[in-house]
């Protein structure tokens, strides 16, 4: 029987609650956003006692469904001030699901200054002294927990920037290889730090199997679904071979690769850090792995283990957005330098998108020379990682750096850094950045699929026509998919192969023993998206917040010399559903 763990830090209790009927078929983003919307006052201070941090595995997490091992974390974001859901791979989603933990709600604030480790077991949560872990960065915390328990222990942790409540702080999750995946965006690590939780350990001893109401239906649908993943060229071949970084060259050719803090749309040295180069680099070194999964049961394997020329581990989960941010937008041409900075961001526990975008603004400000990978690595470890005064200005995000240095080319929406696709030359993604409930977030409605990659049809990236509808439909569908525990890359086959989405919905219906159509599933996405929007409105956001920074209208970006040219009324049409 699934249950909800309600962890109250004010009186250090954990109540094990029954799952309300209306939450029974929810999971992931649908559940974290529903709980945050129901229980968190929208106007509360995100770092104050009224905010809550909610973890929920996806609807299908812990089952045999391929690619379903992602955990959602939700709260009011201290970076954006909006509702936030950030999902990650690792091991905890499957642990929670198999332990029957539908959600863990962390509320209140400890009365004293003592740092805590929450220890989650089948019976509930205990409150352990974490004073020996304070000041440690993430890999040391993971090592200490592996030593204290064993390698099977699930770990969610924050580094020093999280302890100090810097707004780029993430929540790091141990992956099956004892490395790190991240609830990256929106500063959820600062929320965890505000509640004095250094680390959460998960002991799944006694966990059973996730209950499936209709096993035959589930098995049949799971087979169709997995076949779709393997048959589609993006998930079956492109992603496993080159990783997400395959996008560097295609965005460069299309003129949508933001370069030198969004000044240009193409970068001369693009091939030095491209996915093709990264593949050849890893394949040519001892101990390198070009394929790697972020959770058990992933059949796409888009991650990798990146090593140096002697075969020593540098990083894993080295994503396009991070490589773009460092290698292109900061002009750091050495891929090994970029990999070391990525690893440093994992270790200190900051979002590697926000971290890379803010460094480019710091370079524009003259804090770090353009292209200086060694100095960037030092700044990560010694300034942001140690929360020096400069580190705090930087570690509070892209908007903070721009404000501190009086700059106008500050790529943020709702104070969250804009990732790796220029909205002037890929206009659909600009609509997503402007309007998503999450602050600038490419995954919230990934129009790149259709604007650039010709997946799910084609909408010309340089014209305004069709972009609002494209972004709206993808934002609704993504909200639904983010609730399943599925990796968002299942969308590539789902957009092209007609059997995939019905198979996904059939698995959910079979899991819970309910009737569910594709329309019901998408309708759930629309309902949750509107609920998130209503939370933001109640928190004080208006249509005027759904805008891109002015510089996108004023500065044409080569090679297409495109500007952002949507009127406010055109943008607001996204919400007409």
């Amino acid at each position, binding site marked *: 029987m699934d249950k909800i763990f309600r962890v109250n830090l004010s009186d250090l209790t954990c109540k094990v609650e029954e799952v309300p009927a209306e939450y029974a078929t929810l999971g992931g983003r649908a559940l974290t956003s529903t709980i945050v919307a129901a229980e968190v006052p929208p106007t509360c201070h995100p770092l104050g006692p009224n905010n809550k941090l909610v973890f929920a595995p996806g609807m299908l997490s812990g089952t045999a469904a391929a690619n379903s091992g992602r955990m959602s974390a939700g709260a009011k974001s201290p970076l954006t001030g909006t509702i936030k859901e950030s999902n990650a791979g690792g091991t905890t989603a499957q642990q929670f699901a198999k332990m029957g933990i539908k959600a863990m709600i962390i509320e209140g604030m400890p009365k004293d200054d003592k740092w805590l480790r929450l220890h989650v077991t089948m019976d509930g949560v205990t409150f352990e002294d974490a004073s020996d872990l304070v000041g440690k960065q993430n890999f040391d915390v993971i090592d200490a927990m592996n030593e204290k328990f064993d390698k099977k222990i699930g770990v969610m942790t924050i580094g020093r920037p999280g302890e100090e409540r810097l707004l780029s702080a993430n929540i790091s999750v141990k992956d099956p290889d004892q490395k790190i995946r991240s609830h990256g965006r929106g500063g959820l690590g600062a929320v965890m730090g505000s509640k004095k939780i250094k680390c959460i350990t998960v002991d799944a001893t006694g966990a059973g199997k996730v209950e499936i109401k209709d096993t035959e239906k589930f098995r049949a649908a799971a087979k169709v679904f997995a076949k779709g993943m393997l048959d589609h060229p993006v998930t079956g071949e492109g992603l496993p071979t080159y990783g997400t970084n395959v*996008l560097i060259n295609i965005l460069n050719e299309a003129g949508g690769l933001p370069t030198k803090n969004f000044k240009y749309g193409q970068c001369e040295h693009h091939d030095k850090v491209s996915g093709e180069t990264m593949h050849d680099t890893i394949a040519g070194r001892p101990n390198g792995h070009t394929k790697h999964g972020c959770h058990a049961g992933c059949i796409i394997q888009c991650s990798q283990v990146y090593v140096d020329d002697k075969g020593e581990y540098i990083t894993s989960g080295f994503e396009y957005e991070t490589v773009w941010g460092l290698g292109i937008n900061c002009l750091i041409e050495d891929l090994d330098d970029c990999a070391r900075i990525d690893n440093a961001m994992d270790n200190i526990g900051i979002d590697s998108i926000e971290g890379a975008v803010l460094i480019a603004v710091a370079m524009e400000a003259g804090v770090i020379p353009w292209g200086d990978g060694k100095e960037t690595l030092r700044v990560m470890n010694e300034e942001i990682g140690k929360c020096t005064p400069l580190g705090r200005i930087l570690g509070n995000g892209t908007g903070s750096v721009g404000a501190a240095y009086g700059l106008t080319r500050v790529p943020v929406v709702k104070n969250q850094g804009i990732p790796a696709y220029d909205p002037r030359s890929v206009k659909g993604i600009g609509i997503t950045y402007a309007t998503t409930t999450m602050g600038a977030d490419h995954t919230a409605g990934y129009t790149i699929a259709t604007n650039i990659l010709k997946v799910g049809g084609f909408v010309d990236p340089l014209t305004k026509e069709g972009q609002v509808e494209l972004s709206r439909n993808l934002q609704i569908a993504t909200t639904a998919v983010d609730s399943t525990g599925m990796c968002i890359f299942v969308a590539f086959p789902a957009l092209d192969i007609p059997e995939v989405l019905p198979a996904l919905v059939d698995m959910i219906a079979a899991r819970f023993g309910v009737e569910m159509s594709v329309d019901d599933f998408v309708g759930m996405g629309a309902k949750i998206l509107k609920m998130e929007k209503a939370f933001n409105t109640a928190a004080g956001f208006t249509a005027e917040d759904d805008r891109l920074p002015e510089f996108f209208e004023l500065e044409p970006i080569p090679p297409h010399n495109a500007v952002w040219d949507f009127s406010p009324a055109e943008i607001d049409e996204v919400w007409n559903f």
Partner: protein
Amino acid sequence: MKITVKLFAGFRDNRFKMAEQDYPEATTVGDILSSLNIERPELGVALINGRHVLPEHVMVDGQTLSLFPKVGGG
């Protein structure tokens, strides 16, 4: 006429990264794919000057054609 062809991702396997090649007048993108033994369904995206083009597109002397298999990420 001279056409520069740039290949990406798996299209580079056993072919090349970039090559300037001679083609007859009125050559289409599809003709170039055939000359490279790339089947139409393998093509993800073809770009000229940062704009998407279809296999029917007729090439002009001096143009650069960038060819990608079906790839994605994000």
